[in-house]
């Protein structure tokens, strides 16, 4: 009875709030908090000083203990699973229906020391801590905060949606004048995206430690040579 009326009132209130967004407090960026499940699509652009430009588009699924990303054009993906203190990372090669799995200690050896917060938010807390907050507010109905600054030879400009804890834009400008940009194209609540990660449950998964003993495996030979499905630790673009 009165619920439609209440909804209308809420809508009106929301309209007013969106209309004068900076009146509302912007939630702080709390990277230590567990981020909400989300599905998103990003675009990475790399522009070199010479004017060359490369593009890639990739998708991202985040739930509590599982992060998956996929580059549909390259047919590659990464799966991160957190199991108590142990982290498993699988690099997926969809065209081959194969994967290479890394355990925490393999990643340590590769000097990767993955940080779940950084993996799940695409933001390195140490980096954010080293930058200065330049502005905050509301855009398209979402709260955001923007951080800028220089770390070493690199100039950073990062805008983060504080509700979904996802960057809407990361710009990295190197000393070589190469500009790398990651932009959020769209995001969905988990389970409401139009796409699902490619099913990989029945792939042949090779332990990273076994790579060296598969010298005649055509897939491994391509990986060793840095061909096919991109580099072993290839990029999203």
């Amino acid at each position, binding site marked *: 009875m009165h619920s439609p009326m209440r909804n209308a009132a809420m809508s009106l209130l929301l309209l007013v709030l969106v209309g004068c967004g900076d009146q509302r407090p912007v939630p702080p960026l709390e990277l230590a908090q567990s981020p909400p499940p989300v599905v998103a699509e*990003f675009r*990475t652009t790399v522009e*070199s000083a010479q004017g060359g430009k*490369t593009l890639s588009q990739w998708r991202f699924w985040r739930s509590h*203990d*599982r992060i998956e990303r996929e580059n549909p054009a390259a047919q590659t993906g990464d799966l991160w*699973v957190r*199991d*108590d*203190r*142990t982290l*498993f990372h699988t690099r997926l090669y969809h065209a081959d229906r194969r994967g290479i*799995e890394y*355990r*925490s*200690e*393999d*990643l*340590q*050896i*590769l*000097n*990767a020391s*993955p*940080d779940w917060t*950084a*993996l799940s938010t*695409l*933001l*390195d807390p140490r*980096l954010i801590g080293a930058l200065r907050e330049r502005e905050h507010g509301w855009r398209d109905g979402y709260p955001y905060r923007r951080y800028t600054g220089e770390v070493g030879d690199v100039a950073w400009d990062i805008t983060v949606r504080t509700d979904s804890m996802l960057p809407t834009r*990361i710009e*990295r400008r190197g000393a070589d004048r190469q500009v*790398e*940009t*990651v932009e959020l194209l769209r995001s969905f609540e988990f389970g409401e995206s139009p796409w699902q990660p490619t099913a990989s449950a*029945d792939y*042949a998964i090779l*332990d*990273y*430690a*076994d*790579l*060296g*003993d*598969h*010298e*005649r495996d055509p897939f*491994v030979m391509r*990986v*060793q*040579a*840095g061909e096919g499905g991109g*580099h*072993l*630790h*290839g*990029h*999203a*673009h």
Partner: protein
Amino acid sequence: MKSHSRISLVVAASLTVLGGASAPALADNASAASVPTSGAEWFRAGRSAVEANKLVNRELNTRRAKNVILFVGDGMGVSTVTAARILDGQQRGVDGEWNRLSFENFSDLALSVTASANQQTSDSAPTATAMVAGIKTNDGAISVDQSITRGEFCAEVTRAKKVKTIMERAEARGMSTGVVSTARITHATPAVNYAHISNRDWEADSSIDRDLGATVLPSGCTKVKDIAAQLVDFSVGNGLEVALGGGRPYFEPNTKADPEYPTRMGRRTDGRDLTAEWAAKPRAAYVWNKAQFDAVDPRRTKRLLGLFEPSHVKYEADRANDTAGEPSVADMTRKAIEMLQNNPKGFYLMVEGGRIDHAHHAGNAYRALTDTIALAEAVKVAREMTDDKDTLIIVTADHSHTMSIAGYPSRGNPILGKTDAGLDLLAKDSLGLPYTTLGYLNGPAGWTGNGSRREFDPVTEFVTAEIPFSGERPDLTDVDTTNPNYLQESAIPTAGAETHAGEEVAIYANGPRSYLVRGTLEQNAIYHVMANALGL
């Protein structure tokens, strides 16, 4: 009292008479701490080593062996042993170059030629087959001869090509047998003991099915059984008594969650739960963590299967961080010998340090060396628990790796450090850059300035472009190369892994018939030494 202790006492006494330093030939490494400091002392130490060798009891060595223990350091080439010996000494605060690992004091030594029937530089399947079955065979072959095609699905063809292993001969005679590994227990080196299959990768039935695809087997052919199933179904004699290592999902159905990491499922599609089948055998136990392992009473338990990780057991350097806890290779060796010693007819045991190889493949000398030291500790335990009079112990490697010890570092320079040039100066290459003493001919770290490592950076992963080849070596001046996670540089960059190397590896032997280990032997002679010692 163990006979080797007696020999050591005799040697020690004779050395006192000679007035020399302790002799590396037979003294254990704990007593080898004093390095000669003058020409006269070096001379006496050299002579003492020869005097000690004269005291080796040849009579003792011509007896038959009751027990044989074969230790295999996977990828433990001679440079690995040298570097591990130095690291072990330096970690214990003694002279690393003078230090000896436990097995380096064995009485006999030979070189092992590791080329396989079709490989100049081999993988672990034919090399392990050579050691336990006495023949050379092709890449990927698990105790089947070279006439088989890699990927032969037919069980009947496989049966016709199989070669009897030392474990099967020992079981047939009523001895007890076991296999211990820090790799998956279905991995090539342990598998050659109990399995016969044309492809080392067929560790679970799902792997065979994936390769088989839509292929229809010819009439009269049944599908070969996977390696894990061959372990649990192994029935020569009364079946093997002890199997300890990693590889749980290869034994469990794909409907069952892993007990330690519940997000992971088994890899079997035939519905068999091999761990449950093992546990159902009379007086058998299946364990998957350290607490369960420690609780196993070796006098009451007749059969023990221990699977401590979904894949390989952790590196020794990382073992303390394991979720459910894991025994060390020395712990597993001790438990295995305690169980196998229950049989008065004797035992055969293989112990593999399986991850020396993996760390080298990753280009990480630290973990390769610390796993070598852990294997040496297991050898020490085995020697303490057995008698030189009746137990032949062989320590060897299946193949080498490309790690080398280069430059002219001073004696005592940290083996994981940068090569010094004396007077607190670092040696420099032609670019004016310092370099590490340990390095690889090929491998993932390359001379690309460790570019590949940045790609994992959680932020830059999504941002960086291709990291271009700089064509220059990295400047290591401010890099701590002794960090356990440091990757040594390699001359030839590979995207994935460093490779095996083709030179000889050493065979160290002690106990009955150990004198048969001499000269430059083809690797398959190791089987024949063990068979001769056991009278098989």
